[in-house]
């Protein structure tokens, strides 16, 4: 009589404990807020105000200098605010940042404070909330999506251009910077003739393709028609139109003739070492690379310029984009967490911290407060380009918003297709027909 209930009870307890052990476990996620009461010792009132709070943060970490700069601010902030714990979720992966963010969301780890680059997408999905109004005064310009402000911009948009080795130019007999596209190609010929790979491209990272692809798209399309994307969505224009075909043909010819052979195996973070070791003479990228290059070899001499188009006009990426720090919807439901995040944002943009971040990333400040730092020669060129009224400012294909927003999945598909076009020596028109088809499919899929 004794054995029966004992065995049955044991079985139930064991079954329940195993199940609960598996389901339970320490909640190591960063989404927890420790609301434990302060200690029993004195100074209870002061302890009460310093409630322990933790939140998670996620940002694009493809640029090591940028990652370190943000990481340093986080560490310093936590040292000065011991009651606030920030769990840094950022990690360097082979995925594009958008893929990483969506994967984090899928596994329930969407960061509480997130660097947002696809604002409209995540705002429409209800993942982020509007920027708290008491933070907006910090910034000189705040991009809007459907009339709402979601982002605290990390920096203003920086232009992309050629970062070149002065030594390689000198050795190839290049004495003047190009005034138009044909002169630029002539320089590539000189460099090639001198036995150096003219251009390094970090094609292993799909986002890197955007630098060159958008250079041609901006020159041929967006400068003349900033609403091209919305017209494409309405099927009023096509990827097979002569201007797009010309842009893609220019891209293909450049890649087939002047880009380093191993470009598809080269990561974006390897490009700086190509320049400083003399394996390539130039890199087409943005000012955030200046720090990486200087760190790779402090004695390496390099310059920067924006590549002109066939008519000699200079067009660059430079319009404001809807991007920057955003508060997640989940985090906004927790008052303590929201306050901690706001505190961190204010701290991030404090002159002493923000200056260091800008210096490291060679960013253009987005704050109202006039942030000054010692601009290098290359950075001064960047600032001059941005200040030049004759330079047309535009955006990359995936950075337009509102009616010009493209299907979010199209960018990566298009860049991959353009990689294939080069390595398979494909027919541009045929590939652009496929692009039309894919774009329409994706528009249709998104509208379902």
């Amino acid at each position, binding site marked *: 009589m004794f054995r029966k209930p004992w065995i*049955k009870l044991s079985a139930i307890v064991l079954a329940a404990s195993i*199940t609960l052990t598996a389901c339970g476990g320490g909640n190591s996620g960063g989404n927890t807020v420790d609301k434990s009461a302060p200690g029993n010792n004195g100074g209870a009132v002061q302890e009460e105000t310093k409630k322990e709070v933790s939140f998670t943060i996620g940002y694009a970490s493809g640029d090591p200098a940028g990652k370190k700069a943000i990481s340093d601010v986080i560490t310093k902030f936590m040292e000065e605010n011991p009651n606030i714990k920030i769990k840094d979720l950022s990690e360097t992966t*082979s995925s594009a940042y958008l893929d990483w963010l969506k994967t984090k969301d899928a596994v329930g780890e969407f960061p509480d404070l997130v660097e947002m680059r696809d604002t409209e997408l995540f705002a429409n999905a209800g993942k982020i909330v509007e920027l708290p109004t008491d933070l907006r005064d910090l910034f000189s310009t705040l991009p809007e999506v459907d009339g709402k402000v979601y982002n605290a911009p990390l920096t203003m948009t920086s232009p992309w251009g050629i970062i070149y080795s002065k030594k390689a130019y000198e050795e190839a007999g290049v004495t003047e910077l190009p005034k138009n596209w044909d002169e630029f190609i002539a320089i590539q010929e000189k460099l090639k003739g001198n036995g150096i790979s003219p251009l390094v491209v970090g094609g292993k990272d*799909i986002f890197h393709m955007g630098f060159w692809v958008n250079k041609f798209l901006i020159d041929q399309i967006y400068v003349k028609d900033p609403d091209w994307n919305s017209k494409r969505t309405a099927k009023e224009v096509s990827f097979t139109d002569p201007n797009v075909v010309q842009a893609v043909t220019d891209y293909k010819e450049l890649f087939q003739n002047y880009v380093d052979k191993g470009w598809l195996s*080269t990561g974006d973070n390897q490009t700086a070492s190509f320049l400083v070791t003399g394996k390539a003479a130039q890199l087409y990228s943005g000012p955030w690379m200046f720090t990486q290059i200087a760190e790779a070899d402090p004695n390496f001499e390099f310059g920067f310029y924006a590549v002109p188009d066939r008519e000699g006009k200079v067009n660059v990426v430079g319009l404001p984009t809807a991007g920057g720090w955003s508060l997640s919807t989940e985090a906004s439901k927790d008052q303590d967490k929201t306050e901690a995040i706001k505190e961190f944002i204010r701290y991030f943009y404090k002159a002493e911290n923000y200056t260091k971040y800008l210096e490291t990333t060679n960013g253009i400040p987005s704050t109202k407060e006039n942030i000054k730092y010692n601009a290098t020669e290359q950075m001064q060129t960047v600032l001059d380009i941005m200040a030049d009224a004759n330079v047309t400012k535009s955006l990359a294909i995936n950075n337009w918003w509102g009616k010009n927003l493209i299907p979010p999945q199209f960018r990566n598909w298009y860049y991959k297709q353009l990689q294939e*076009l080069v390595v398979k020596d494909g027919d541009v028109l045929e590939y652009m027909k496929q692009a039309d088809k894919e774009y329409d499919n994706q528009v249709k*899929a998104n509208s379902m």
Partner: protein
Amino acid sequence: MTTPATLINNPQTSTKKRRKWQSYALFFILPAFILYTLFVIVPTVGSIYYSFTSWDGISPDIRFIGLANFVEIWNSPRVHNALKNTMIMTISLVLLENVVAILLALLVDKVRWLSKLFRSIFYFPTLLSGIVMGFVWAMLLNYNFGVINQMLNKIGLGALAVDWLGDPRYAMLAIVLSTVWKGAGYYMIIYLAGLQGIPQELNEAASIDGANGWQQFRHITFPLLAGSVTVCMVLAMIGALKIFDQIAVMTDGGPGFETETLTYLIYKVGFGELRQGFGTALAIVLFLIIMIITVIQVKFLQKREVEL
């Protein structure tokens, strides 16, 4: 010793007693059953529903779209390309992994000297995760900094130094060979167990009758390995159809879409392109493909086992 299992299986145990013990057994099965239901059965059944929706994976808005995802799969050149890549990779991997595994097993079986060391060396790569293996091979095969190209350059064969992972002619080959390197050791162990179960007398008798090594392998060893072949072929096939890690790390499905397989496409469209509904429909198609091929393969190989 009397155990619950012997009590249940003993025909002399009364029905009442047996039922009682079975109910205890059920309690012990319960935790595993609950976890399996929560993490496997529920998502699997749920995925059937999602395959008929246009859910993007992050929005609360889930719309039923009927068979639209499956129609798109049928018509999509990208899916056709992924299916083609999957088939090429599967056939190559199943054949190469098994051939290499049998050769290694024969080698380890025959060579008595340091056989344990060789067995460990050949088995070691299987202990690495696909991700780690992918990173290692990606570094080795890197066009500019990879050891393989640097060695080729050093020994005067610079012309053979190609962009292994960036050239569409070699990217698939690189993935297949690195996967064989990782997987063959596992199948080698299964074949080795099979080889060691073959009575030596058979080979000795054949040898006395004048059969050479190849003839002994062809007519004695290989037929008696039929059971191991069935297991290894099925496992290799399922593994190849599900290949993901190496592609994610080594080529990201590229160059272009040259190494994009069905599993990688499922991940790309599901997570990368915000089309969970479409990705789930693709997963269901892949599940059906694996099931059909496995059934056919097992039937064929079991029939062969009987014939042999």
